[in-house]
């Protein structure tokens, strides 16, 4: 089933990929090193003397029997990553290019979501999925394990692009589920003000937000040479025109809009990458998470 979502070439590249968060350290601005914060956990780190305030259950009673002193067992803090994939499935995501009409923006988004789920589950971390479409959303709450991965893939499989991006009250469940310092990967075309606003609010509320913007080749190159009746799939607006005559103006305005969007995302501290449908799928993942992999190796 997931073979439909994940192209084999992308699956092969996933081995090298590691998805991490930059905010897992409690030391803000702590740099690239992972946390050595000690506390309760599975992996033993060291003993230290009891201090008032320590929980009595953390005292090593066997050691007390041998030495008649209170020692507290300390372990390396286990800090699992929780990653959320927010997939835009509004009607605009159904757009494909005329050169490759079977490969829609939504297909690319599903493949990227499946790849992230694959990597995150392999790392033993938690993965959650929210599909935003039709003025509402579907949630798969974050959980670890292969079953969760299959659940996410199943959820992805049934997604069809329809309707508009949800806004306002409809997004409240997200705030209830996504905790602080959790990683949020937003996948969509980012043409709606509502989705940019959501990303900014999430980032402003101490969530680590990453945006993968999906563009079609037509939006990058505007390759139309003849008379077209352009139709917006979400608003239904139409605009007739000759492709050659419109190209220059569109490319200029669209480029300005993209630069403005990237500036906004940068200002909000949101890392972002652009994926055009004719490019290799792993490029945005590498671009966004390569530093994490280096950090993991360090």
């Amino acid at each position: 089933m997931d073979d439909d979502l994940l192209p084999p070439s992308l699956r092969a590249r996933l081995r090298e990929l590691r998805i991490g968060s930059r905010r897992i350290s409690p030391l803000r601005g702590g740099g690239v090193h992972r946390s050595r914060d000690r506390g309760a956990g599975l992996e033993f780190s060291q003993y230290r003397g009891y201090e008032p305030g320590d929980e009595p259950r953390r005292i090593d009673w066997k050691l007390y029997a041998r030495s008649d002193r209170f020692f507290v067992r300390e372990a390396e803090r286990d800090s699992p990553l929780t990653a959320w994939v927010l997939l835009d499935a509004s009607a605009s995501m159904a757009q494909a290019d005329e050169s490759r009409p079977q490969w829609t923006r939504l297909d690319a988004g599903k493949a990227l979501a499946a790849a992230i789920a694959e990597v995150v589950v392999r790392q033993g971390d938690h993965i959650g999925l929210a599909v935003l479409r039709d003025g509402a959303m579907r949630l798969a709450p974050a959980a670890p394990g292969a079953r969760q991965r299959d659940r996410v893939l199943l959820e992805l499989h049934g997604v069809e692009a329809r309707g508009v991006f949800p806004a306002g009250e409809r997004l409240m469940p997200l705030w209830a589920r996504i905790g602080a310092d959790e990683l949020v990967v937003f996948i969509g075309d980012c043409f709606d003000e509502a989705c940019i606003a959501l990303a900014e609010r999430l980032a402003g509320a101490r969530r680590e937000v990453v945006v993968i913007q999906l563009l079609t080749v037509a939006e990058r190159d505007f390759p139309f040479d003849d008379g077209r009746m352009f139709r917006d799939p979400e608003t239904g607006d139409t605009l007739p025109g000759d492709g050659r005559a419109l190209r220059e103006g569109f490319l200029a305005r669209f480029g300005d809009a993209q630069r403005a969007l990237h500036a906004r995302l940068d200002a909000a501290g949101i890392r972002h990458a652009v994926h055009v449908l004719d490019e290799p799928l792993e490029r945005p993942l590498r671009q966004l998470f390569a530093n994490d992999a280096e950090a993991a190796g360090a």
Partner: protein
Amino acid sequence: MNLVLLLPAALGALLALAIPLLIHLSRRQQYRPTVFAALRWLRASPKPRRRVRFDEWPLLLVRLLLLALIALWLARPVLHGAPDTTPWTVVAPGVPDGQVRQLAGNGEGELRWLAAGFPPLSQPAPASPQPVASLLRQLDAELPGGAALRVVVPERLSGLDGGPLQLSREVEWHVVPAGDVAPRQVEAAPRALVVRHAEGQEEAVRVLRAAVLALREPGGGEPAFEAAAVDEPLPGGMRRLAWIAPGPLPDAARRWIEDGGAALLGPGTGLELADAEWRAVWRDDDGTALVEEAALGRGRVLRLHRPLRPADMPQLLEPSFPHRLQALFEPPPMPTRAFAQDVAPVRIDVAWPAAPRALQPWLAVLVALLALLERWLATSPRRGGRA
């Protein structure tokens, strides 16, 4: 070598070129629906650029070419200065069938009958006789200068005329022996003569009667001879009239002549003929005209300058007078038969303007090929069935 259009007005048909242009243009006005999510960054161009564009260039070009060629075909193009030097062989009717078949089997170049329209040799022999000499001159004038001409004629050639065969080129004059052809029996023309005379002209009537009697065939019956006064109506079925009466010719007689008769008018007969050309057909030894001839309607008028009396016209007494009279009414035919050897064409230095070469047949072939190509392009499946 230059191209000349014999009917340049037909190039007006080039206006039809607008039809395929319009057909290919009109389909261009539709807009293809395109889903485009980034519509908000599109602006309608303030001045929509309506560029004239056509779809399906190859088909359009073929259609334009086809119409242009049809217009050119209608304009009857000819090519000057590109002579067709195919050798011609013409066969006169009368050549034995065996020879004709042999020629048709292994001859080279154009093989034609020497007959009106020059039909190919594969067709049955045209009716004999043909105006051979006239046809040869026509062919010589029509063929380009460099084309060799070979003429196959029977031993005895008929269809000649009085003039010598003078052609602008060397002709291979090939005489083949032919079986004896029975000489054509000439129909004896009716020699009946109607005479209308006034009072006191009995002597002229006597002279005429004597001449007609002298022309009687040996063993033949009495030749029709009718003499009466001028007020007797003229009989139908007769073609010769002698009107020996002074005064103007009555309208009835004039109509009779115009209907195809030949009339000998006495010296005193008045006849008004507007712009008629009188030609002397009989002169005496001094060169004075005795009889003049002019055409009237479909008939002829012969005007006598002297009274038909031996005293005024001593020629009436000569033994040749009856034949003279006969010749006046019916000029003897020109000799048309001769031994082919004796009438071989002579080359003279005369340069006909070269006949231009018609391009219409080639254009017709080209048009047909283009029409096939157009249909093939228009119905080929890659056009998605839009024929």
